[in-house]
Structure formats: C-alpha cells, structure tokens
C-alpha cells in the first residue's frame, strides 16, 4: 500500500508542478502587457502620433515619422513579398513537379530560418551597396525576404486544403486549370491565405535588425523612397538605450503601440481563421 500512496503523491506533485509551469508561461504574457501599459499609456498622446522627434532633452516630441515610416517599409515589403509568396504558392500546390516543389520548399524553409540580422546583411549587399544609399527600398526589400516564405507556406497549405471534389467539379464543367484556380480554388482558400498574410505582416512589423543598416533612421519625414526612413522598432531601440528619461518614456509608448498593433493583428487573424474553418466544416 505504501508504494501506491507514494506513487499517488508523486503523481499529484508532478501534475501540480506542470500546472505551475503553465501558469508561469501564461503569466509572462500578462506581465509584458502590464509593464508596457503601466509605463507607456500616459505617453501615448496626441503628440506621439503627430509630432516629429525633437533633439534630446527637449520635451514634447513624438514619433509620427516612425509610424508612417514603418507603414512605408511594410507596404514595400508587401508589394514584393505577397505576389511572390502567393503565386509561388499556387505553383507549389497546383502545378509543380515533385523535384521543383521540393527544391522551392526547401529553400523557402531555409530562407525562413535565416536570422534577421543576416537578412539585413543580404539587403545591404544587394540594395544599399549597389545604390549607395540607405533607403526605404532597402528596408522594404529586407522585410520582403522575411515575408516571402510565410506567404508561400500559407498559400500552399490552404490551397492544398481545398477538397479535390471542388477541383474535379470545376474541371468537369469544362473550365481550364487556370480558371479553376482563379475562380474556384483561391476563393475557397482565401480566408486562410489572407489570415496567413496578416500574420506575416504582423511578424515583420516588429522586426528591427533588418532595418538597422538598410533603412537606417530619419529625424524628419522621408520624402523619397530612396532616402533613409524612420521606423517604430528602430526608434524603440535607439530611445531605450539612451540615457534620457524623456526618450525612455517615448520608447515605452512606442512599444505599447507596436505591441498593440501586432497583438490585435494576431488575435483578429486567428479568430477569422477559426471561424472560417468552422464554416468550411459546417
């Protein structure tokens, strides 16, 4: 009997411990949010969204150019990354031969696993060195390299999940393969693909390392895409490591705004996806 009691005690202890592990892990998320809100919410004011950064020591500056700048590089990366990912994904799901697919999938996974700082080096060699400029283009290119594998994987995954019966039905009605893809398969998978893209954008929105030596930074509005451009993550970095209390305050505010956007995008995307797959099944 003793042994059984011991085993049961051990059972309860270990199960309790594993519950504690979970609580700790989940608690970390709330701690992060809590800290950002506590330190940042007072600083997220009208100034933050509309003013330009001021010289160190002067109060009242904002990060308007960084918000817009982030938008600009993300937009560039979307323009490059989404078509490549989407059309490449169609190839993998609908047209590709075994070997070609394996090669593309392998390199896409490889690209996905490249550390973001190395992507930054790559964008530097390809864009900055050749054009002799730090620019929004270079930053957008770097981010698009991270967007491509995500778009590719998502598109392929959701296209493949469309039941073959739909494909066969469309072909049986006489539509060409292209027509089938455009008019039947893609619309059926579009929710999944779109949420995948949104998650991809949320991921690159927070990336700092690839922008450090491509888009660099800018005190002012950038009026040309071939100029350096400010971005939220880089601003957070420079302000967090500075000695100025006012800059720290702004770093918290920027962190709160950035994390808020990223989390909202993530939550919204997953909810849409969950509803979409439920509708498909039901």
């Amino acid at each position, binding site marked *: 009997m003793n042994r059984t009691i011991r085993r049961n005690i051990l059972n309860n202890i270990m199960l309790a411990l594993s519950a504690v592990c979970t609580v700790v892990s989940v608690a970390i998320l709330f701690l992060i949010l809590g800290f950002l809100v506590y330190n940042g919410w007072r600083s997220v004011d009208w100034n933050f969204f509309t003013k330009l950064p001021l010289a160190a020591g002067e109060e009242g500056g904002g990060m308007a150019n960084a918000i817009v700048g982030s938008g600009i590089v993300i*937009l560039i990366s979307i323009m490059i990354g989404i078509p490549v990912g989407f059309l490449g994904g169609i190839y993998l799901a609908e047209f590709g031969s075994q070997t070609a697919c394996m090669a593309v999938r392998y390199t896409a996974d490889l690209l996905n696993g490249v550390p973001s700082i190395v992507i930054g080096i790559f964008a530097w060699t390809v864009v900055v060195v050749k054009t002799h400029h730090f620019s929004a283009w270079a930053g957008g290119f770097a981010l698009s390299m991270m967007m491509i594998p995500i778009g590719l994987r998502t598109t392929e995954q959701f296209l493949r999940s469309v039941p073959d019966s739909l494909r066969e039905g469309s072909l049986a009605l006489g539509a060409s393969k292209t027509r089938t893809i455009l008019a039947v398969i893609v619309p059926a998978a579009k929710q999944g693909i779109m949420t995948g893209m949104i998650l991809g954008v949320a991921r690159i929105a927070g990336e700092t390392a690839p922008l450090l030596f491509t888009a660099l*930074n800018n005190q002012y509005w*950038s*009026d040309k895409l071939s100029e350096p451009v400010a971005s939220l993550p880089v601003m957070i970095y420079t302000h967090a490591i500075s000695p100025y209390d006012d800059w720290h305050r702004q770093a918290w505010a920027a962190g709160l705004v950035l994390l808020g956007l990223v989390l909202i995008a993530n939550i919204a995307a997953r909810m849409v996806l969950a509803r979409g797959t439920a509708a498909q099944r039901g």
Partner: protein
Amino acid sequence: MNKITLWAIGVGLAAAVAMPAETINAAGATFPAPIYQKWFEEYHKAHPEVQINYQSVGSGAGIQQLTQGTVDFGASDMPMTDEQLGKITKYKVLHFPTVLGGIVPAFNVTGVTDIKFSGETLAGIYLGTIKKWNDAALKKDNPGVNLPNEDITVVHRSDGSGTSFVFSDYLSKVSPEWKSKVGASTSVNWPVGLGGKGNEGVSGLVKQTPFSIGYVELVYVAQNKMSYGSVKNAAGNFVKADFNTVSEAAAGASKEMPADFRVSITNAPGKNAYPISSFTWLLIPAKFDNAVKGKAIKGFLDWMLTAGQQEAAGMSYAPLPKPVVVKETKQVASVQ
C-alpha cells in the same frame, strides 16, 4: 491590406507632397550630436527648404558612410587619416572644425561628487590594473575623499567612436603602457569593461550602474546631471572641463592651425588647459554633384561659423577660436 496601412500611406504621401524639401543626409560623431541636432533644427526653421538628417552613429560610421557615398557629409571627432582620405577618390574631403568639446570621466559612486584623476590612474583603470575605487593611486590624489572598497565597473564605447579616439589618444600620450598595449583609434581592443553604444549608451550605462566610470562628452553629463571628475593636465593641475579650460587647450593650436585643420589638442600645454579636449569636424566633400545640396551646405556652414557659434557655450561646448573661424570662412568659399 489593413486600414492602418492605408492610413499610413495617405499620411506619408500627404507629408511628401507638402514638404518639397531637399533632404541632406549626414552621419557621424555622437560627441557633438546634441548641438548638431539643435543647429540643424534651427537652420531648418529659418530655411525650410533645407532639411539635414543627422544620424548620431559614431565617428567611425560617419567616415565609413562618407567613404561609401551613402551620406552627403560626415562628422567625426577624429580627423581622417591619410589612408582613409586616400580611399575617397571622387573628391577631396575638407575638414571643418565646428566646436570644441571636452571628454570627461563621468562616474557613479554613491556619496562621492568629485574625484581627481591623473593620466596614470585613468590609464590604470582602463587597462584593468587599478581594479577598486579605493586603490592606493586614487587615494593618493584624493586625500579626504571617502572612496569605497568596491570594484570599478569600466564602461567604454562598443561602436567606432571619435570620442574613443580622443580618449585613447590622450591615454597614449600620458601612459607608455597604454600606448604599446592598446594604442589610439576609433575602435580599440579594450582590455576591460562594458560597451555602450554612442555617448548616449555610455552615459546610460554609467547612470544605471553603481560604481561605474565612463568617458563621455561634457554635454552628456550636464544633460543627465551626472558627476564627473577633474583631470591632471600637462602643467600638473587638476582641471575640470568647461568653456574656459577647453578653450585654453585650443589656444596654442589655433595659432598654428594647419591648412587642413587636422590637429590633436589632447594633453595641451597651458596652466588651466583641460587635457582631454578636442575639436570636432564636419567632413565635407569639396565638390557636390548636386548643386542644390552644395549650395545648401555652404549656406549652413556660413551660418554655423557665425550664428551657430553663439549657441556653443549654452550647450557646454566651447566655440571656435576667432583665428580658426577666419581661416575656415575662406575654406567654405572653396566648396562647390
């Protein structure tokens, strides 16, 4: 595409249309960054069509980017070496001194507001041979000061820095051991210590780390209300950096300023000369492909040498000596 992105494009496009300014990109030293940023902001207010985007990334980066042509002009606390100048073949690089500054040993020691450092003690701290605040050498120079029995946390620059150059140049002049072991440059092989990025990073680390010491430009200790020590000069006096002591360090050099303005004024002679002083330079190409940019920069340089100089003292830098200003104004004319 989500709405936020659309809004962002809209604002960005509106801003782009509304501000047809010529953006001039510059990068370089963190040492003069506070006054440069103020200057560029004020000049932009007076001349809205000129927008100078200065990135405070360190003298090393400034020189590097100028060499690669990714910025229009650079800034550095270390004059470019002949080797570095040789790498730029497209045009000649002109050095324009802008202000004088002092590099001070900022420290964070509870209960102590003033410490006297000699060249030897500073070299010893940064070589790692002097490990504690109550080391005999420090106590000798600071009788009556309650130096605690704590390890010294040394902070230096992790990036390529003109400030590092001036500091290591000074240490090389006062310590043969430093000169042979480490030497002087924007990026040296520091024997001990933590690295901070930019003057800002070093001040940040010193401010947050008890019992630490770091070398930073005077304006950063003023802005962050930090304690800093006095340094023994060549004449044997312990001097604190300020307008007068830094200007005195430049007095000798200004009389014999070389034509290209490249000169080191560390450990200068003079009763009250501050030994870790330096000019800081803008590195301007002699010829601009873009005539509009060239004209804008010339206009700024003239303004800098007149109205700009008056702001220097208010920001804890020393303005340029008059003979230097006169010589420089002639050099501005040669910029095309």
